[in-house]
């Protein structure tokens, strides 16, 4: 299959993505109606569908580790953040019991989702088994939500204060970067299925290896680098947003005198 042909036919129309997406959309509109923040939700939904249905998904499904990593980052770090931004500002996301609302839980959810799913056995299982794959997708979205809730909860009082948020984001970034560094420079293959796909479903392997020049080593390197560099830029953007929040004036003179 040529590249052009693949870009045209590599879309995943079947599967649960579309119905679940439609259901979520209906749920959002029923709950909150059509308001200003709907744009964020539309963005999240669109991005999630593109990630799960476009050729990226076909590549991630047994061909390219780097495509999988792109999916992983979008589903864990971008989609949940956009969903949280789309919620009305009055909505409380307090978790019961209160322990679940602890920043450490959020941090472990975000960082753990990265490390956990890249243990070689689990990484392979997520490709070869449909249910595990579905579990992975859902868990990324949920854990991403738990992670970002500390930063982007609709209610101001449920968010971390900017200095703590910066520490939270920075340490999460460093911890994920370390995994990225390991993957980039590791002489060991993280997901052996990507290095040697057992079946070439789309008859694409030749195009990828020869046409695109994506050797398994380079593929894993790009995957690691995606996690090391661009992913850190997501955290950096969030940190800059926190700095902006920190320095933004309160505006109410009543609280000014201390």
């Amino acid at each position: 299959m040529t590249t052009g042909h693949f870009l045209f036919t590599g879309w995943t129309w079947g599967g649960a993505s579309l119905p679940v997406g439609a259901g979520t959309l209906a749920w959002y509109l029923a709950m909150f109606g059509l308001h200003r923040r709907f744009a964020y939700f539309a963005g999240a939904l669109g991005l999630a569908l593109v990630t799960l249905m476009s050729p990226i998904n076909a590549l991630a499904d047994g061909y390219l580790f780097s495509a999988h990593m792109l999916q992983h980052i979008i589903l864990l770090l971008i989609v949940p953040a956009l969903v949280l931004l789309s919620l009305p500002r009055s909505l409380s996301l307090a978790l019961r019991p209160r322990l679940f609302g602890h920043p450490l839980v959020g941090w472990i959810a975000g960082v753990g989702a990265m490390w956990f799913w890249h243990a070689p056995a689990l990484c392979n299982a997520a490709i070869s088994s449909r249910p595990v794959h579905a579990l992975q997708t859902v868990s990324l979205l949920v854990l991403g939500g738990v992670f970002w809730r500390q930063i982007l909860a609709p209610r101001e009082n449920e968010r971390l204060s900017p200095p703590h948020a910066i520490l939270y984001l920075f340490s999460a970034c460093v911890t994920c970067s370390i995994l990225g560094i390991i993957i980039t420079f590791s002489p060991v293959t993280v997901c052996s299925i990507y290095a040697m796909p057992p079946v070439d479903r789309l008859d694409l392997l030749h195009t990828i290896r020869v046409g695109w020049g994506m050797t398994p080593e380079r593929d894993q390197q790009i995957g690691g680098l995606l996690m090391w560099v661009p992913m850190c830029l997501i955290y950096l953007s969030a940190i800059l947003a926190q700095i902006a929040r920190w320095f933004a004036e309160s505006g109410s003179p009543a609280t000014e005198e201390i």
Partner: protein
Amino acid sequence: MSDLTALLARAGLSTPEQREHWTMKWISTVDHKRIGMLYLATALGFFVIGGIEALLIRLQLAVPNNHLLQPDTYNMVFTMHGTTMIFLVAMPALFGLANYIVPLQIGARDMAFPRLNAFSFWLVPFGGLLLHFSFLAGGAPAVGWFAYAPLSETPYSSQLGVDYWALALLVLGIGSVGTSINLIATVLTQRAAHMTLRRLPLFSWMIFVNSFLVILALPVLNAGLVMLLIDRLLGAHFFLPPGGGSAIMWQHIFWAFGHPEVYIVAIPAFGILSEVIPVFARKPIFGYEFVAGSTVAIAFLSLLVWAHHMFTVGLGHTVDLFFVASSMLIAIPTGVKVLAWSATMVGGRIRLDTPMLFCVAAVVQFLLAGLTGVSLAVAALDWQTKNSYYLVAHFHFVFVGLIVFAILGALHYWFPKMSGRMLSERLGKWTFWLMTIGFNLTFVIQHFLGLAGMPRRIYTYADLPGWGWMNLVSTVGAFLMAAASLLFVWNLVTSLLSGERAGDNPWKAWTLEWATTSPPPHENFQRLPPIRSRRPLWDDANPGRPDPMVGAKWKAETFAPEKNKTAVIAFIISETAFFAVLILAYLFYNATPQAGPGAQDLNLAKTGLFSLCLFASSFTLWRSEVSLNRGRQRAMRAWLAATILLGGVFLIGQGLEYGTLFRNGASVNVNLFATSFFTLTGFHGLHVCVGLIALLIVLGLTLAAGFKRRPSPALKAVALYWHFVDGVWLVVFSTIYLLPHLR
């Protein structure tokens, strides 16, 4: 008691006069102002040494085919020049300024930990002595300031120079981490009431942010140095490819420290510019928030992009591509700063006194340094200009053009506060013009030399077209800079003796250090003006049109945590960086199976059992804290003793494991498994020992007197450290013992 008297008599300190003598006053001082000045004096002393080395380099290169210096000597001279200027001049000078100015700017009485401060300072001269002692011990290091392996390894550098280099840098690194922990604790816990974090002067803010960079980056170097020393002294092969090691690993470790290091010395310089430029432009800084925020972005990005120092190593196009893109991003926050400084000057009533002249020159020169920096971030151009004088010119524009100029600006600016006397403005202007002309003569031309193909670190060169006169111009410039430095020292000495009296606030500046006498009294402030904005002295002088109030919006702004706890957390952050390097190294070196001893020789069950003891000790220590909070001193002591016992049992277990390995012939230099295993577990064991000593001290204290404060900050701090050591073992144990079983 009589012992003490005898001891004092022997040290010549028996009478009060002897104890009050000025040498004793300076040697034993814990006052941040004196320590700051000691730092600055030390930096000046080493600046003379490093400067003479620079002049030797330039003399050697002044004409083609010169044989003033032997090739070996030349290598030693440029290595010592680089190492001295970065570790013994730039860092101590900036730490000295931070030490002197930050407590004053935040309205504090002293640093959070005055004794730690003195300790950190004294490591600098002694580290410097250790480095320079190598001249007497068979030759200074001759491997360049980044000491690339395998050149720095025993087979290629068999003299002791590199050992002294590594040991000295370890000493200096520990001192830098100590100072930075102290600065973090000072800014967080010692601020005057109403000096909220959002009202911090930019110099203090940048030192605060920078301190985090120091505690994250320096431990990475320390870990690398430790590994290099293990290679050299114990015959291991971390960085020696013939033994299975990786020379590139050294480059990664060095630049993971080395790139942030550039910003570690640049960010305080940015802080200086952000203080001086507004004062002499008679305008508040343009975009305080952007200058402050971009500092965080710079610090963050600097940790991320070290691989751009390694484009020519052959990491592959993929890796290069990512680091080209991310390195260029740094131009954005630095550009924001340059714009903010420029916009501050636009429309201001600029007074071109010496401090301002230096700072304006620093901005201009930094702009050029940044532009060549962006060009070097392009891997293709980097390939052509790597290790040429283009690179030399680039980083000298950063280190001299920005940092030295900013430091000189800062010294001219704050000298009146430190001494109570003004520097001579006439001599200052001479210094400035000589320095600026000399600097640009020296280094502008080196860009062209580099593009003409002259490689760095060659001790002499053939008479190629253009090279001779360009090098001569560069050498003439270097001597102009030397003349400027001499003039500056002359200015310092004469002004100290007979300078004009400065008064409290000679520059009509607005931050708190100018609200006290010059020099400030021992306790810094008699009274503080009200603090409600970022320029309290402006508000004080202009009650009719004060700055808009900077509100306190966040609890975290006014929040003053307990200082012991803050310092221990900062220490834990730096230790995490240290262990992260060792753990990553372990993973890297054991990724592929190797001949000889391996993870299969370890006793999982036995060590697992002893590990449980260590984990249990965290529980007992927690119970000890709870007992103290409930006022049960005896239970507290019992739990504390149990903790110590469990820690001791763990160490015995480690000893048994080591014994078995030794009996099976697995000593540290056998293969990379053994080396990395003993390095990682050995350093963990060392930390357990330190924790045990701290716990024993706490136990001794409670047995002697008991804690009056509940909860006790001392116990809390030691407990945090102990939990951290246990946490590290959890990761180390999983990495070494459990991971091989998961494969």
